[in-house]
Structures are given as C-alpha cells and as structure tokens.
C-alpha cells in the first residue's frame, strides 16, 4: 500500500485566550489513504473544524497555533511534506497544489465581484501556470464535471446569480481545479436543503471515484457520515473518542458518547412509536463542557451513565477494541 495521503499524529492546537493557552484539539491522530473518505464528526466545540484548519494552516492568526504534533502530506510527486512549521509561502504553494477545500457557506468562499469562471480559473493560472485562455476553458470543463448545466453561461455569471446548491458545486469545482490529492470538506452540505444535500453527496462520491483523492469530511451529521465515509473519527471536547470503519462504529459503537449520539438522532418512523408509549426521546443529559473548564479525566464522564471513579482521574488512552476500531473509554468492553 502507498503511504497515506495525510498522516496526523499527536496534534495539539491551542488558542490564546485571556493570557492562557486553551487546547481546542489534543492527542489527535488521523490517517487518510488515497481514495479514502474519513469523516470527522462531533458537536459544536468538539475540535473538528480546528483540526481541519490546522491542516491547511488557517487557524486564526495571533490567537490560534499548533502547539505540538505532526501533519504529513504525501504530495502528487510522491514526496512527503511536513506541514507544521512550513513558512507561509511554502504552505500556500502546498495548499494550492495538493489540497482542495470546500466550506459550509459557499458565499464565504466565493468573491461576489468576480464571475464564477474567473474564480475557478485563478488557481489554475497561479498554481499550474496555465494561460488565461486555457484556464478559462478548464474552468468551464470543471463546471460541467460538477454537474452544472449550461457551464459556458454559468462561468460568466456572478455568485448571486446561482442557487445555494449551484454555488456549492462551483466551490467544489474551484477546490478541484488543481487536481488535489486531498480534499477537505468542512460541513459542505450543512447550509443546503436535504434534497440538494443528497445531490452534493452523490457528486463528491462520484468525483472521488474518478480522481482517487483522499477526502476529509467534517460534519456534525451522523447520517451524512453513514452516507459518504469509509472511516469515522468521533470527536468530543477536543479529542478523538472513537474511530474506526463506519460500518463497525455505527453498528457497534464502543464509546458511550458515540452510542448516545447515535440514539439521539431521530429515526424516521420510530418517534411515533415512542410517543404512543409515552417515552421521551433518548438524549444525552447535560451540556458539552467549556474547553477552558474541562473536567479532570475523561471529558465525557460528567454526562456518562457508565462513568466510574477511575474515569475522573486520568484521560483514558485509545484502546484497540478491534484490529480497526479504537475507543477512548475505560469501559469499552461493557458497551
């Protein structure tokens, strides 16, 4: 097997708040192979977006920084580059050549005063050194590839003339313009209607099958994970608490947080049965802790029905529950 496209180990990203370093992400290990989709799933403040921003060096300036760890990217020419500690110019080059990014809100990635075609052509000119005319042709071809009808006309239009779904397709075209080895998609379907979300998920899966890129898919939606990912890493309060193949983690979660999250997702057709029986919807009690005031030991312990004293003394390591599935829970065998 080839070296992985992306290999993160021991990542710790901190934010400087009120003179103190608060860890938004810690002990994060993550590997993505070529042609593989790995989902990073978690709720607000879990650190999933901070992890993806760390990879592309876009942590908020002055406040956020990578304090520890390594992020290694295998580039198109086969060389492996360590991204932490790269100077901004080299990092910019790596990002443009090898990493594509799609964010939640297409309008934040699109410039309202340039046409769609110009925006897709720009990275092609800068990173691939193509002429204006060739880049413009490439842009139209990319728009066709992401399923935009009438791509010639759409390339000449401005972002406000496109629907939300079309805009997201355009940002995907832009992300793919330099044929990246890694695509980072951070909540790419969260702002979209559910029928459009289904279209975009199908599109990403088809593009990956054609191009064989690795995808890091950041989302809060477990249904979307089941739909698109090969492997999943569940984050809670800055740490990965469980990881493994989606088929294993979703059929047999080995961390109480994953299990609670799975139970909390409303399932079609089941709620009416619960209501008829007078049973409330399953929930996870309490709230996500503030990163500045994390409890000692396992961060999930205060909300966990299985918690024992040992959970409150030290952060549990990741246990190998199976050869492919890992859980950061002392009691993973009891699940």
């Amino acid at each position, binding site marked *: 097997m080839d070296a992985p496209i992306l290999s993160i180990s021991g990542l710790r990203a901190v934010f400087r708040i009120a003179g103190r370093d608060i860890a938004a992400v810690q002990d994060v290990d993550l590997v993505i192979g070529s042609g593989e989709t790995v989902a990073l799933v978690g709720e607000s403040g879990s650190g999933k977006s901070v992890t993806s921003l760390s990879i592309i060096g876009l942590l908020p300036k002055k406040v956020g920084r990578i304090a520890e760890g390594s992020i290694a990217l295998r580039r198109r020419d086969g060389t492996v580059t360590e991204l932490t500690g790269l100077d901004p110019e080299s990092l910019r080059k790596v990002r443009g050549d090898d990493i594509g990014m799609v964010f939640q809100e297409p309008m934040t990635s699109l410039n309202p005063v340039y046409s769609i075609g110009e925006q897709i052509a720009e990275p092609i000119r800068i990173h691939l050194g193509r002429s204006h005319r060739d880049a413009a042709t490439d842009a139209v071809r990319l728009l066709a590839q992401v399923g935009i009808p009438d791509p010639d006309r759409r390339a000449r239009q401005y972002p406000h003339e496109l629907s939300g779904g079309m805009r997201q397709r355009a940002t995907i075209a832009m992300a793919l313009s330099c044929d990246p080895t890694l695509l980072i998609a951070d909540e790419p379907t969260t702002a979209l209607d559910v029928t459009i979300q*289904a279209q975009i998920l199908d599109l990403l899966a088809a593009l990956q099958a054609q191009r064989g890129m690795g995808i890091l898919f950041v989302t809060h939606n477990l249904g979307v994970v*089941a739909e698109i990912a090969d492997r999943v890493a569940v984050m809670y309060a800055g740490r990965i608490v469980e990881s493994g193949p989606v088929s294993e983690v*979703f059929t047999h979660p080995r961390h109480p947080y994953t299990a609670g999250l799975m139970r*909390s*997702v409303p399932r*079609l057709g089941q709620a009416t049965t619960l209501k008829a029986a007078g049973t409330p919807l399953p929930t996870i009690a309490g709230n*996500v802790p503030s990163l500045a005031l994390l409890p000692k030991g396992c961060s999930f312990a205060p909300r966990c029905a299985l918690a024992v004293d040992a959970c409150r003394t030290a952060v549990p390591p990741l246990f190998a529950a199976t050869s492919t599935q890992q859980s950061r829970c002392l009691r993973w065998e009891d699940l």
Partner: protein
Amino acid sequence: MGAPFLSVRNLTKHFAPTAFSRGPVVRALDDISFDIARGQVVGLVGESGSGKTTIGRSVLRLIEPTSGEIRFDGVDITKLSAGPLARQRRKMQYIFQDPFASLSPRMTIGQILTEGLDIQGIGSRRERRAKAEKALAAVELPADAYDRYAHEFSGGQRQRIGIARALTLEPEFIVADEPVSALDVSIQAQIINLLRDLQVRLGLTMLFISHDLAVVEYICDTVIVLYLGRIMEVAPAAALYARPQHPYTRALLSAIPSLDPLARQGRQVLKGDIPSPANPPTGCVFRTRCPVALDACAGIVPPLRATTSDGHLQACIRDDIA
C-alpha cells in the same frame, strides 16, 4: 371537537417589489388552508422558499397576508385593528430559530422574560418577576438565571430562555419556528422533549416549523408538507411516515441520510434546484423535479384532496402511483 382553534383559509402572500428592490412579485404562499384543533401540534415542513416561516409569521400577523382569513379562537385576526390585535397576541407567542440572535445581549434574562408582560401591562413588578421565575423553572433553568445575561448560557440553555420568554404571557398558542435547528443533536432531543412536556402539561396548541421531517415526528400530531408556497400533503404524523403519498414527501423522506451505512443504495435523489418563488412553474409547482410528472401536471394546479379516510390529504393527480 367543535370549531378549530386556529383556522387558516386561502392564505396568500405575495411580496411585491418595493422602491428599493426590483423584479417580479414573489409568490411566497398560494392558497394555504389548514386547521389546528385546541391542544394539537401541527408541523409545517418544507425546504428553503417553501413558505413555512411566512405562514408562521402570518398567523400571528407579524406580516400582513395579501389575502385570506386567519381565525384564531373564532376571531378573524386579519381584520383586527391594533388594540384588539394586541390583546389577541397576548395568547399567541413565537419561539425563534437562532438562540443567539433572538436574545438581546444588553438585557438581563429577567428583562427579556418580563418585557412582554411590561408591554401588555400585566401585573406588578413583583408579580412579573414571579411569572418569569415560574417560566424559568418550567424550562428547567435555575432561578438565578434571572439576573444573568444571555452570553453566559450555552445554545441549548439559550433556547430554553427563548421558550421561557414565550411562556411568561401564559399563551394558548405558540409558533415554534425551527426551534432546534441551530442546536447540536444531543441537545435537540432535550429541547423537543421539553416542548412536548410543556405542550401536554399546559395544554398548548402549537405550530411547529422545521425543514427536517425527522425532527417533527415526535412532537406533531399532524404534519403539513410544503413546497414552493403550496401544501403538497397533510396527514396524521404516523400515517405520513408510514405511508407518504405525495412524490415530494417520498423524495424528502428518502433524502434524509440514514444512520445505516448499508442503506446507502436505493436513495432517490431529486434532480435540479428548487425553482424561484418569483417564477414558479405552472400547474403543480413540484412537476419540474417530480420523478413521475405527466404532461397534464403542467396544466392544472392539483387540488388538495383525500385519497384515504384517515384525514390524509395530498395534492397530486397521480392516484395510480399512490
């Protein structure tokens, strides 16, 4: 059962261009009719531009309908002048989607909770405080929240404050507009349980707006599915999920990603975009994306009609596929 508590008839809302905007009339709602019996919860579900929020705001007359009738407890509120409308509104409250935008950062929770009572001139200062504290208790927040500010609370707690604000006036009817959409999944279920609990305990009548069919199932007795300003299907919740009739409802249910990784296949993906309400398709508004549309669908606006006897209504001419 008697007369419905809320009765909406032929509600239409067209947004005309103003001095500051150009373009055609936006047909946000066209000929919407439905009833809510006292103590019932009706869900309004649809995607962007379906008109669900426009309905929610119209029934409280927060926006003026273009035409149609909205009877609240027997009174047509579209014809009321300001004074009587304000007195009716005392019985009606609104819960907003975004618990960050809907609470003023400069007011204490106490001020937020008692503002409606102040405006309506209800009670002495002490009585107002007592009502606010009772509302806080009802949403399971500590009484000391009264003197704190919204930024001190998490999203789920803020949404509880938004609910408490709606409760202080002791309303009979609540419009809950996407009350859990901005919340994390582990908190969503907490808030839905709370709303259901309050609804049963206080005998509230509720219009529950959501873009997510999965979210409304637990709390709603009846679900209305909207598309581009028109009702596609109305059914008792259990019937809608077990036997969806309209092709749009089926597609919407099918598009919700399942937690089962093995269920990836067999999903029905609708093609194309939702048309603009400024230029809706003729005939059935769904026909441009409908997998089973016929030529005839362009010719007539299909009426909402019963095809079964359980109160299930749908607006599709294709009986042969139901």
